[in-house]
């Protein structure tokens, strides 16, 4: 509630939300290290976490520049009510199927988003998006390949993938929510309209789920949201407590 980010311009706020998605996603992936099911997965998950962290640094740097806030001030000195990531990114890691399904949903979304953002009227964001789109393309391939193997692997892996699907699905709606600021930015051609991504996303996700023998998307009225407005799950506070612990224990230090 130190309100570091209350006065950000809309485009900076937008970049911050995307950056927070990437930062928190990177954090959850990095929690897998030394726990992954195979050495190849250690390498791959670390790689994706590193790409996401790189994107986060770029976006946080962009978001803070005109306010004079550094990437580290934004990452380490905000409390969870100031974080703007989607709830999907922050949910605690479950099993490997949970991580794969989340990555599948998330990278499908990011791929569409960054592709759209390459057309941004903001040249810097457009250039960033072009590079990031390539990276998330690889994340998406990885997630798809494992979604297929888990869904169409053993009975156990199928059941675990189906359980992850059911748990995570409700959180995907938030990715396509539009608030006033984003609507205005989209109207100015600065960012893609999130709603316009929902259709392609559903189609792409649906195709893979079907191929993975995971059936169609679940139904249900519960579509939680709030992350973009700083209304998170109870999990984010613990994540940030850990992430910020060393930084906060040494106020004013440089690293």
């Amino acid at each position, binding site marked *: 509630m130190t309100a570091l980010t209350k006065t950000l311009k809309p485009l900076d706020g937008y970049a911050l939300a995307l950056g927070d998605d990437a930062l928190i996603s990177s954090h959850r992936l990095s929690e897998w290290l030394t726990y*992954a099911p195979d050495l190849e997965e250690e390498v791959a998950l670390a790689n994706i976490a590193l790409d996401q962290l790189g994107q986060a640094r770029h976006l946080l740097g962009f978001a803070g520049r005109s306010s004079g806030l550094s990437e580290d001030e934004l990452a380490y000195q905000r409390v969870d009510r100031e974080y703007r990531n989607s709830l999907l990114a922050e949910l605690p890691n479950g099993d490997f199927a949970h991580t794969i399904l989340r990555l599948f949903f998330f990278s499908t979304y990011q791929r569409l988003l960054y592709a759209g953002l390459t057309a941004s009227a903001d040249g810097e964001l457009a250039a960033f998006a072009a590079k990031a789109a390539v990276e998330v393309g690889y994340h998406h391939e990885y997630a798809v*390949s494992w979604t*297929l*193997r888990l869904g169409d692997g053993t009975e156990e892996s199928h059941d675990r993938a189906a359980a992850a699907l059911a748990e995570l699905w409700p959180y995907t709606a938030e990715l396509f929510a539009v608030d006033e600021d984003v609507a205005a930015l989209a109207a100015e051609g600065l960012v893609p309209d999130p709603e316009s991504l929902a259709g392609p996303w559903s189609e792409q996700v649906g195709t893979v789920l079907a191929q993975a023998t995971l059936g169609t998307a679940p139904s249900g009225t519960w579509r939680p949201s709030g992350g973009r407005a700083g209304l998170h799950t109870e999990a984010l506070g613990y994540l940030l407590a850990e992430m910020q612990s060393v930084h906060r224990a040494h106020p004013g230090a*440089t690293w």
Partner: protein
Amino acid sequence: MTTISESRFDALLAADERIEPRDEMPEAYRATLIRQIAQHAHSEIIGMQPEGNWLTRAPSLRRKAILLAKVQDEAGHGLYLYAAAETLGVSRTELLDALHTGRQRYSSIFNYPTLTWADVGAIGWLVDGAAIVNQIPLTRCSFGPYARAMVRICQEESFHQRQGYESLHTLARGTEGQRAMAQDAVDRWWWPSLMMFGPPDATSTHSSRSTEWKIKRHSNDELRQRFVDLCVPQAEILGLTLPDADLRWNEQTGHYDYGEIDWAEFKAVLDGDGPCNRQRIERRTQAHRDGQWVRDAAAAYQAKHGQTPAARGTEGTDR
């Protein structure tokens, strides 16, 4: 394969040529290499744990990225090394099983805990530093796949070592709390790093035959001395003290003398009674157990479809 054309093997060795997997070789040479490469591979993957312990708490995003890349590199080193060992006719599965059941070892240094963020810097400087001193001669090792893996690994580890040193330098020039953290980390990692070169030459096993086979090219004490001589001036630049009252320049030998190493501690840790031996192996075996259903799923998919679903996709971003 019981008769070995040892003359060709000996000739290659004598000519300082590389032995390749297709070449015939004495079984003892093969066994020694398997043991050594496997231990090295195990050390890479167990070594991810102490540093990985700080991934989620790195105090800046830049340091977090550096650490993440480093831990990833260690997993990558593990992959190359298991692959190198596999050229000798063992499988990664067998080697992992030997690790999990305690039949093969990993470097004892990783049985110490990382207690503060500064430990990441100290490990980079001292532990990677010691590893490099140990490993540079291995880039000229007689077994080709191992030597080639070591070239790449040494390059990456030099990079890690410089990053660790630089991180420690920042801490040592930082706030009082950061400086104290840095000194404390060096105090705790210095002696275990010296132990990384193994027992004193007088008591070392394996060495003489490994030397004949051009696997090992320098004695433990020689390499240890080289490491000490490298570190002392670096510590001075850092402005940190090495925790050894006996450490001083010896005009006669042209080297730094250093105090007595606690070989009882070394032995205890090696024999399983270090602070983290149980924890490291338990974590490793748990990850392996927990991953069984995932590996099974991949195998089942492959059996059904005759292929993996797509290129892994991450190779393109591997760096």
